[in-house]
């Protein structure tokens, strides 16, 4: 007889993994925040001023400043309705399983300024879950109060407070997983990853205080707590993926960023520490995430834009419960998990983009927690080619946009293996890592 914890662990041994992994990959594409036309109407700017590819999510330094200023910048022409929408039709072709073409997503954005010091971003997302059925959920939230144009020691200072529901989503550099929407897929992952099982993304609420000093130095500190499961349910989330009960959670961020107009670079560190009880009535695990990120942008005259980012996050875990596997094997009481992502994006004329991501999820060997091989390592790639014809100063329209995208999801290693990744016994159909691959075509309109 297994404890609930062991049953929870054993669930991962089932081939249900296959569907979950594909769903996680598709989620990476579907959850991405796009250029918000309401912001363009508010500022008079074009989508391309804030997003290299005119449709997002990759931010230009100007887009970072807009975010840091609490989404409050304006052209000064009075109140603009802070509402936008997005519709997305997607053709999905997984390597195994049936292809489908659906209106996959409809979004409502409440995004913009309320006053010169208060602004925000709220995304309400409806995702297709079956035949003509949609699940509506409260997606990303980032509400801000900001004090701008302060001086400290003769240097510029911006101070702000963010109330948000995903650690890292609020980051201005937008390289961290919850802001870039790029995260390794695997059987485990760091707490800062949005693709990890039981990730906190959109299921927590937190407050952080941030400062930008002398335009280059960024610091942020805050705390989070998980939403009650009943609230998660009301907000459209399956409580089976509850991130658990969180105690003593701290989020810390420090970065140096340099905008040289034609180039930009940043170097940052991030830390998140929490005591997590999962299930909520169980003992707590001590999780400590320590990461760093490096980014570079060549912007030039905006004809050819190259953006590079590398994120490396190590999570140290100290498990609170003794865990026993089959045959009485005792699981280690400590373990590490590491997420790494390298992304390169080339954008031509702020219209055509090619983004390539290489993602690694690795961890300490643990035969009890990571059956059947005790190896959680996974390697994946995401390649996206897209065309966004509008949203530039010389476009037909600067405040609405269209995006046609082709995306390949490729998994080359899962559960530490390339073949028979779920350890099928002799005679059973083995699953290759490549069986988790998928291809999608999508058309999105934002207005």
């Amino acid at each position, binding site marked *: 007889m297994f404890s609930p914890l062991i049953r929870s662990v054993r669930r991962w041994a089932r081939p249900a993994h296959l569907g979950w992994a594909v769903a996680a990959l598709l989620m990476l594409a579907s959850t991405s925040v796009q250029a918000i036309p309401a912001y363009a109407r508010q*500022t*008079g*700017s*074009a989508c391309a*001023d804030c997003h290299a590819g005119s449709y997002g999510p990759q931010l*230009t330094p*100007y887009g970072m400043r807009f975010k840091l200023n609490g989404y409050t*910048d*304006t*052209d*000064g*022409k009075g109140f603009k309705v802070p509402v936008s929408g997005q519709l997305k039709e997607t053709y999905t072709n997984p390597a195994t399983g049936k292809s489908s073409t659906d209106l996959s997503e409809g979004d409502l954005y409440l995004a913009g300024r309320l006053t010169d010091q208060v602004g925000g971003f709220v995304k309400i997302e409806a995702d297709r879950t079956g035949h003509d059925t949609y699940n509506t959920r409260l997606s990303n939230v980032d509400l801000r109060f900001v004090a701008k144009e302060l001086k400290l020691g003769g240097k510029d200072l911006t101070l702000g407070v963010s109330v948000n529901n995903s650690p890292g989503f609020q980051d201005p550099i937008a390289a961290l997983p919850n802001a870039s929407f790029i995260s390794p897929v695997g059987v485990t992952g760091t707490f800062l990853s949005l693709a990890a099982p039981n990730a906190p993304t959109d299921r927590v609420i937190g407050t952080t205080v941030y400062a930008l000093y002398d335009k280059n130095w960024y610091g942020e500190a805050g705390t989070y707590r998980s939403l009650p499961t009943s609230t998660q349910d009301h907000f459209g989330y399956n409580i089976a993926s509850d991130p658990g009960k969180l105690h003593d959670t701290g989020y810390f961020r420090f970065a140096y960023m340099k905008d040289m*107009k*034609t180039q930009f670079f940043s170097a940052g560190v991030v830390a998140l520490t929490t005591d997590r009880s999962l299930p909520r009535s169980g003992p707590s695990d001590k999780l400590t995430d320590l990461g760093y990120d490096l980014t570079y942008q060549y*912007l*030039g*005259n*905006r004809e050819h834009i190259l953006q590079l980012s590398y994120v490396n996050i190590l999570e140290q875990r100290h498990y609170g419960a003794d865990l026993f596997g089959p045959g009485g094997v005792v699981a280690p009481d400590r373990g590490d998990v590491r997420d790494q992502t390298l992304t390169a994006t080339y954008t031509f004329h702020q219209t055509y983009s090619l983004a390539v991501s290489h993602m690694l999820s690795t961890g300490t060997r643990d035969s009890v927690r990571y059956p059947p091989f005790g190896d959680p390592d996974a390697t994946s790639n995401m390649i996206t080619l897209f065309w966004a014809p509008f949203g530039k*100063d010389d476009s037909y329209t600067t405040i609405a946009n269209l995006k046609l995208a082709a995306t390949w999801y490729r998994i080359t290693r899962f559960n530490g293996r390339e073949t028979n990744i779920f350890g099928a016994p002799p005679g059973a159909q083995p699953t290759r890592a490549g069986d988790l691959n998928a291809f999608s075509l999508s058309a999105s309109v934002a207005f």
Partner: protein
Amino acid sequence: MLSPFPQAWRSEAHRGRWLHGIALGALMVGWLAASPAARAGDATAGADVFKSECAECHTVKEGRNKKGPSLFGIVGRQSGSIADYSYSDALKQANWVWTADKLHWYLSQPAKQANPGTKMKYDGLTDAKQLDDLLSYLSSVH
């Protein structure tokens, strides 16, 4: 002995005219160096400078304001004169004409130093060639 000049130029009369020509040329060069036209750079290169330095907040489209006002026809324009743009009080009171000289002065330093109280956030363009190129481009937009 070889000379770059024709034989006739070596006569006293011609030497006098030649020296007079050099002096006139020098005066012309000096005048040009002191005038906005002398700073006129490469307008094509200036378009690139505009894209990297100015385009986030300004366009050169007539009637289209972003965070900053349209720069269509900016050279020669009265400051604070676009009717549907909300200028800062500081710029409304500046009451100057955006000549090439004025723009050169304004853009070569932090905006808040040139016009205290302005809402323009710009640290200034210190590269002289880029500034000349930019002014040449802005002069061409009208």
